[in-house]
Each structure stands twice: as C-alpha cells, then as structure tokens.
C-alpha cells in the first residue's frame, strides 16, 4: 500500500502536512513535527518585517470552536533564516504574507534561497487589516501576486485562499497560475464572554479553525476540484484519518493539519497515517490515487 502523493512536482511520503501558524515559528519544533510523521511542514506566515502580533488573549478555545488572532506575529524574513537553517534537508514549505506583488516575490525568493521546497502565499488571513483577507478578495491583486511570484522562483507556488467569500471559483481562477491551491484558511469569527461582557480576543475578531469548519473546507476542495483542473491541498478541521480520506475523496492531493494538534499532540501524524493504512487495507486500496476525487459527481 502506498500513501505517498504528489503535489505538483513535489513528492511526499504521505499526504499529511503541518498547516501554517501551528508550531512552526521555531526550527527545532518543525523538525520534531517532521520526525513525528508529517511529510512536510508549512512555516508560520513570514513577512518582510518583524511583527509582534496582537496582545493576549490571542486564542479562545471551547471545543468544537478554536478561534485565534495571533496577528501574523513573526520574526521577519531575515531573522527567519536561522530557523530555516536548522531545517536543511527537511521538507519545508515557506508561508509568506505581504501587501502586494513586490513583497510576495521578495519573500518567495528568500524562502527559495533558504531551501524551501515550495512557497505558500497566504492570501487569506481573516483578522489582520491590510493583509490576507483583504488581498484575497481582490481577484486582480491575487492574479498579479501569483504571476509575479511564479516569474521569480523555480520552486512550486501554492496559493492559500480565503473561505470568507461568496465565489470561490472566481478567487480560484484568479490564482490559477499557482501550482496548487490551499483551501481553506480560517473563517472570520469571534467570542464574547458574557460574564466579562466583552470580546475575549484582544483583536475582537479572529479565525475559526478546527472541527467546526471541516464541512466548509471539504466543500471548497470539492467545488474547486470539480470546476478546475488544479491540484488542491485540503485544510480545515482535520482530526482523524476519516477526515483525511474525506478531503482526498473530494479531490485533495494532500492535506494540512493544524488545530487538531492541541487535542491530539504531535502524535496525530503517525496516528492518522496508521488509520489511513488500515482503511486502505480493509478496502483493498493500493494507492491514494485510486480514491482521489472519487466522490466528485
């Protein structure tokens, strides 16, 4: 049985990638995650300059909700070189964010220089003004960012899109020059504590991730896989091997896992991998390509 998979020109030993923003600011942490069974890690989204991110509280948790407003805290692309150094020889996908084509292409080139096997454009963070969501909802800007980055780097370029939209196909088409689409980022959401009578997150709004958003994530992967011919990486609410299979049947080439780590720990990658192998054995599936997109109608 073969759980390996290809995303554009990248070959992965299994479809399980660490999602951006979760345990991936620190080189040693990312190394641990890969040693725990992930086939690759996506770094925290890195910008041109250091950002402290928002004041605490930056997360709110009440299963099945997980809302975060970390605020793109990151050390800046230059300082990040030292973390990338720790990861030489490992499968690292560099996530980057910026305000326009110049930022993104500069950051992408840096990531390539640092040894990233691919670059993931964060076009979709829902809670930071001027980045992410605001970019993601402007198809022309998305198109020019993707084109510009593609023209500047040799490594594959993934575009991570926002689920806070009414027309994912329009968005996806704007990003069609990317080597793969990553769906989805978090849903803009919030929590008010009724006893404190105020929003919990210092930023008020945050991004909903985890279990609650899986049906939305699967739908985006399905919709895009059905309408377009482009590799898709599925993200959102994956907690079990069943969830991974669901995304793959919806058309995903691979998946990213984030929030689930807080309940299941880093062991989740091995656990899910074993689950997938068992499922394949029971159902006499030799390779994931047999079931990829099989639910598409």
């Amino acid at each position, binding site marked *: 049985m073969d759980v390996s998979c290809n995303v554009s020109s990248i070959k992965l030993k299994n479809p399980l990638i660490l999602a951006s923003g*979760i*345990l*991936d*600011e*620190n080189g*040693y*942490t*990312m*190394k*641990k995650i890969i040693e725990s069974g992930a086939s690759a890690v996506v770094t*925290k989204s890195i910008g041109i300059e250091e950002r402290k*991110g928002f*004041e*605490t*509280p*930056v*997360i*709110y*948790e*009440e*299963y099945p909700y997980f809302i*975060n407003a*970390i605020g793109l*805290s990151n050390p800046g692309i230059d300082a990040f070189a030292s973390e990338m150094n720790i990861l030489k020889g490992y499968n690292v996908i560099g996530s980057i964010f910026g305000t326009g084509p110049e930022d993104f292409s500069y950051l992408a080139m840096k990531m390539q220089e640092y040894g990233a096997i691919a670059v993931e454009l964060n076009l979709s963070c829902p809670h930071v003004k001027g980045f992410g969501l605001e970019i993601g909802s402007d198809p022309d800007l998305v198109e020019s960012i993707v084109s510009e980055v593609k023209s500047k780097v040799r490594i594959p370029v993934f575009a991570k899109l926002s689920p806070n939209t009414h027309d994912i196909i329009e968005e996806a088409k704007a990003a069609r020059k990317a080597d793969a689409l990553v769906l989805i980022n978090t849903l803009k959401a919030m929590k008010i*504590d009724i*006893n*404190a*009578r*105020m929003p*919990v997150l*210092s930023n008020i709004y945050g991004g909903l991730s985890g279990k609650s958003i899986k049906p939305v994530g699967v739908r985006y992967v399905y919709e895009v896989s059905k309408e377009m011919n482009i590799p898709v990486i599925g993200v959102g609410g994956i907690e079990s091997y069943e969830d991974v299979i669901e995304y793959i049947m919806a058309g995903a080439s691979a998946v990213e896992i*984030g*929030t689930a*780590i*807080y*309940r299941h*720990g880093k062991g989740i990658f091995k656990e899910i991998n074993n689950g997938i192998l068992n499922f394949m054995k029971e159902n006499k599936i030799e390779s994931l390509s047999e079931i990829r997109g099989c639910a598409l109608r």
Partner: protein
Amino acid sequence: MCFKMRYSYIIENVMENENTHTIFFDADFNALPGQFIMVWVPGYGEIPLSLSCTGKPKAITIKAYNEPGMKLINYKKGDKLFYRGPYGNHFSLVDGKKLIIAAGSGIASMHPLIDDNSIIIESLKRASDIIFEKELKGRAIFTTDDGTLGIKGHVIDALKNVNLNDFDMIYVCGPELMMKSVFDFLKDKNVRAEFSLEREMKCAVGICDSCSVSGIQLCTEGPVFTN
C-alpha cells in the same frame, strides 16, 4: 479536555509585599503543584500564573510588572477572576525530604510544596522582597543581594553549605540565569532535581510555538523538567 474560559469569585486578596499579592479564589478544578492557569484580565490581557495554592481555595501569587498584573493586584473580594486551565505538567510529589530553591516570584509555584519535610533556599534582592514569611519561618535559608537578610550573595552561596544527600528531591524555580547556575552546580552530584521554566506563553495549549525550547513546548510538555 476542555479548557474554555471560566471564572471564579475572589475570596481574598492578600498583599505579600509592595507589588506582590496572593489572590485566593473559589474554584473546584483539580490541580497539582507546578501547574499554571492563564488568567484573563478583561481589557488588559492574559498571563500565565502558577497556582500558589492547589487545594481549596486555590490561589495565585503575582508580582505585578505589566498592565494585566497591575490591574490584577487591585482585584477585590467578590470580583470575578477569569481564567482557563490548569495547564502543564507538575512537580513529582515525594514522601521524603525536599529542598526547595527559589528566587524572586519563583517561590509562587513551589508554595504548595512547603511542609514540615522541606527546607527552602530563597534568594531575594533585599529583605523587604520576602513573601510567604509565615510559611518560610524556621525552614528557610535566605540570600540577599544587599545582605539585608541571611547570606549576602546568591543561591549557590547557600547551596554550598547544604548536604544535598539529605534530600529526596530538589525543586527549583526562578529566573533562567539562576536556574542555569543551580543546574550546573547539581550536574555532577547524584541528586534528583526538577526545574520549572517560565517563558512567554500565548496559547498554553501547545500550538503557537511561542514557549518552545529545542522543539519542546513548555506549556504542554513542561513547565517542569528533570535534571
């Protein structure tokens, strides 16, 4: 595992010294010495604080530095204390003799460990920084930077005079430099020791990477580590 934000009513706010307060609150979760909670001061922020009492009532002891801390030490009896947790692992509980080594507010997390079977070495800047005076009475060896209490010097100066083999466990908490010096001092001695580390913590649930040391998350795999 459910760590949603909760609140408890404050029973008492005891001033330990100028800017250090112990706040007792009425909560019935289970916790062990060494564990911490994330305290939310609405409008001001959220900070990790060790439980300085783990029984009933529970307490936190805070040395106020930043905005949430300043706000917190002014909380009154009957106010709501918002928090989530408890988080992290805990000190090993042993039956035998214990040596507790603390500096500054590091003593807070080890307060639940103090009993008739324990000796405390505490290092302070000056005599007036002392907290938990009553509990420490007759059990503590003090060192101060300015010599206003006990030995003038650092923990190591006190540690040198102690027979380490008398103890079944050594617990250490304080600034990282102090812990490093204790760690190095103990390295070639054949003793059991546990160190509680403090780093910036944002999520406390092991996903934001802000508290990581060598790929280990202090919030979930720590804060207590063995030598």
